[in-house]
């Protein structure tokens, strides 16, 4: 079996790549996608740890092992969907206003 450390390492690598992408790229769409990558990384880590610690915890009604990690990942996916929807709506509005998708051209909030 692959130890949890491997999964965690992979997840942090993915997270770093997503973060760098988010910070470096100027295209808003790619930024959104980098966020996706980061969130996937998180999901991976959650599921991996859940797999490593599946024992039933006190206060959980379901007897067959605790699925907290997975449920958490599930809700992350839900939130992710909502986030992407709104994000892309904003991108559309931005495009309509400024005819561009580069994030650093929306700099009305100057000094």
């Amino acid at each position, binding site marked *: 079996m692959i*130890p949890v*450390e491997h999964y*965690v390492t992979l997840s942090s690598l993915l997270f770093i790549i997503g973060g760098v992408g988010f910070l470096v790229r100027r295209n808003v769409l*790619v930024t959104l996608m980098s966020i996706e990558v980061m969130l996937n990384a998180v999901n991976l880590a959650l599921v991996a740890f859940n797999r490593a610690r599946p024992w039933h915890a006190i206060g959980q009604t379901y007897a067959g092992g605790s699925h907290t990690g997975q449920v958490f990942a599930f809700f992350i996916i839900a939130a992710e969907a909502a986030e992407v929807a*709104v994000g892309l709506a904003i991108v559309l509005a931005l495009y309509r206003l400024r005819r561009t*998708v580069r994030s650093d051209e929306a700099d009305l909030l100057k000094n």
Partner: protein
Amino acid sequence: MSAVGTVYFYVCAALALAGALAVVAARNPIRSAMGLLLLILSVAGLFLALHAQFLAAIQLIVYAGAIVVLFLFVIMLLGPSASPPSDRRGVVARTIGGGIFALAGLSAMAAVVRAAAAAHRTMPMPDVDASFGGIDAFGSVLFSDALAPFELSSALLMVAVVGAIAVARGRQGIKALSRSEQEIAHGPPASEPAQEHSGVFRHDIDSASPALPERGQRLGVHEAPHDAPAQGAKESSV
């Protein structure tokens, strides 16, 4: 048995990393979308390895099916302007930001790995019964322990949908904008060269409210001269 599992893990990991790199490094947003798709699929694979079948399914359906498709839809909607030529503006800030983030991330990861190595004992994966991660286990947990977050996430999704429509609405939204934003919205005055708007926005698609009379009157705002006639008549080339 374990060999297949290891190979399987490393393949998926490699694919995931490749996908992530593609997302970040691709010049054209479509290629980065494809990279994202690859990442999502490989992560789904890993989920399967981690005995989280339901999640893998969700991953495939929601992520691959909906979110990546939405991205593609928007990219196509924006057309070529979705992939503006990259130039050197603001490169210093960006490199600093990315570089320091990468550096911090890698050093933190290295510290963790070193500490784990120092402790030189790995956590073996305990074996778990078959129904773990299945649809019924997940369902029962979802509707017993995680009921509250479940209900709230439904509210969240509803709000997100309404928000998305309101933001993306377009024309009616402008009425609420302030005068200076209207100037911006109407775009630069006629003197701006007839730049090709090849994307889907070549003409005002404001189909949502057909009953809308020619724009501008109701607002009492001065007639924006260049909009209606120029665009309608001239078939702008892509």
